[in-house]
């Protein structure tokens, strides 16, 4: 077993980026992402990473520069949070349309206003429909592993799409955790050098960023969605290879003590580890039939895997960490309800929103949530969402 090293999660991510031997990094400072890119700048300055490090004047420029370096065939990385991701939004749509396999860490943080630097999932939900693959990490080890795997997934010629690896701001980005690092030889064997399918090259000129007239636009968008959906198979392949090589296994939908559970909780991100503690109490001390489902893959939404994971359960409590204003529920809950709609014996789905703008979600909150969804299911309570612990 590899040696475990105690290190800040942000720095572990920088280490993964270094080991992936990226060619270009462009970024703008924003809390709580800053430590990742700052450490990368040190690694470049110390000649530990041979990459173009490009500090720019805004996140809009950062993602634009990334588009340029990726189009030129460079393995490209960036990181951002919150308002920074929002400012990138225009370019976020361009990247998958140009099939540029950029990897980005999003240290998830609430959006203004009110101004908040603290953690929730508002930022990634705002970028939900931009066409990026979106993965969620629950701890530092996962953040490190998923970052490495993301380059391999993104650059696969069956995919060629950008990926965001979402880590909870502060809760993950700023904590020191034990990490098992791979040797550089192991990384090199797992992650081959990037071979672009198409790149800007004066010897073989190509045009990128063309106009899509009405006769072709719909086909282009349909192709893009097909590629994104089909990436799920490649993601699973890469997860499987990683598990074979290094023994750490990832699934697009993860579960915890969900076998035969009548009630399931569903979470994304680091709060899943709190939920696991709650499940242990519910199962072991209270003898209740409660388990946990965690979405590792948010885009493309793993419809079939989700259906399999919740089959047989009677109630499902979906925890969202963002508000989709004026919608029919939390963004994850809406997706889950749609995925289960019309399925025989589908569970009752409760939509719960909690942990906004850095508000803690405790073990007791999850225990209460399980009880609440069971009660709501008894009367088949029609609701949009319930906001947990909100002062009204």
């Amino acid at each position, binding site marked *: 077993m590899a040696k475990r090293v105690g290190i800040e999660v942000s720095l572990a991510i920088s280490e993964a980026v270094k080991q992936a031997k990226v060619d270009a990094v462009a970024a703008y400072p924003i*809390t709580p992402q800053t430590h990742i890119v*700052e450490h990368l*700048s040190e690694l470049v300055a110390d000649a530990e990473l041979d990459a173009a490090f490009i500090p720019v004047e*805004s996140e809009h420029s950062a993602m634009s520069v990334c588009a340029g370096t990726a189009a030129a065939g460079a393995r490209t990385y960036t990181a951002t949070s919150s308002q920074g991701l929002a400012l990138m939004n225009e370019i976020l749509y361009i990247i998958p349309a140009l099939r540029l396999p950029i990897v980005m860490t999003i240290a998830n943080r609430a959006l203004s206003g009110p101004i908040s630097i603290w953690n929730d999932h508002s930022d990634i939900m705002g970028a939900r429909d931009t066409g990026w693959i979106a993965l969620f990490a629950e701890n530092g080890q996962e953040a490190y592993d998923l970052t490495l795997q993301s380059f391999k997934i993104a650059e696969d010629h069956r995919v060629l799409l950008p990926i965001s690896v979402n880590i909870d701001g502060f809760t993950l980005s700023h904590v020191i955790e034990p990490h098992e690092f791979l040797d550089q030889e192991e990384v090199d064997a797992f992650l081959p050098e990037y071979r672009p399918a198409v790149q800007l090259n004066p010897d073989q000129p190509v045009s990128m960023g063309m106009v899509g007239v009405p006769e072709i636009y719909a086909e282009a968008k349909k192709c893009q969605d097909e590629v994104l959906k089909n990436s799920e198979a490649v993601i699973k392949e890469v997860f499987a290879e990683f598990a074979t090589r290094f023994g750490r296994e990832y699934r697009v939908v993860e579960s915890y003590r969900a076998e035969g559970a009548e009630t399931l909780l569903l979470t994304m991100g680091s709060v899943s580890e709190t939920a696991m503690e709650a499940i242990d109490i519910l199962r072991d001390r209270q003898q209740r039939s409660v388990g946990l489902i965690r979405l590792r893959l948010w885009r493309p939404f793993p419809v079939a895997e989700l259906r399999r994971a919740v089959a047989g359960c009677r109630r499902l409590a979906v925890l969202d960490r963002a508000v989709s204003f004026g919608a029919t529920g939390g963004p994850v809950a809406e997706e889950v309800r749609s995925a289960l709609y019309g399925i025989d014996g589908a569970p009752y789905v409760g939509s719960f929103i909690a942990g906004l703008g850095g508000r803690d979600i405790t073990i007791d909150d999850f225990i209460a949530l399980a009880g609440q969804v069971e009660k709501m299911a008894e009367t088949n309570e029609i609701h949009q969402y319930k906001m947990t612990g909100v002062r009204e």
Partner: protein
Amino acid sequence: MISNSELVKKYFRYNKKFPHIWCPGCGIGTILGSMLRAIDDLELEKDDIAFVSGIGCTGRAPVYVDFNTLHTTHGRALPFATGLKLARPELKVIVATGDGDSTAIGGNHLIHACRRNIDITTIIFNNYIYGMTGGQYSPTTPHGDKAYTCKLGNIERPFNISALVEAAGATFVGRSTSYHTLQLKNIIKRAIQHKGFSVVEVITHCPTTYGRINRKGGAVEMLEWQKEVAVDREKAAKMSPEELEGKIVTGILLERELPEFCEQYDTIIEKAQSLDKG
């Protein structure tokens, strides 16, 4: 002149928002103090002032003072202020912004606000670095100086903010430092009284990041440096370029009268309406 304790009681949300977040030795509070004394000297009503900021250490300034305040997103203080001024032209609109906020992420807005000559006073707190996010170099970090994203020295050349805004069309440009608090107060007074887009660039210190990584000493040493390098405009006019090497010229650098945007806007509306009637 108003005493410190009177100033705090009259202008700060001291019982709600203190303690502030600025580091010990930071220059922002000093600049804010000069601004408040300028406003007090002018006997402006607090409710007639709209104080607008973006994001960053400087962006926190409106949180602590008792005016109409608007704390916006990173780089966007000037567009918010432009809308505010057009909707309520009778308000005195003052923008507080840092070097990163105003010349990097919001750089485009700065030059266009200058060009438009809208009656807004913009105070640029220039400490040569992104302080709040931990010391990344900004568009005003001097060439060769260090930041945590350029540990071997900055390879980019800095903006000269005062020259930039003059070229972009600002009709009042003043520069001072956080050491020269009286001069600064007087420049801000004149800037607020000026009709048109006025910019006051304030050279200040960030002992926590810029000062530390560039070994500039603490706040006291950095203030002493400001005292040493600052040369008043009138004195500078008599000095040779060699003598001015490494100096920072302070004072009112430019004051010119050009048509103001809101007034022209009203004129064009009147014209358009008279055409309709005609």
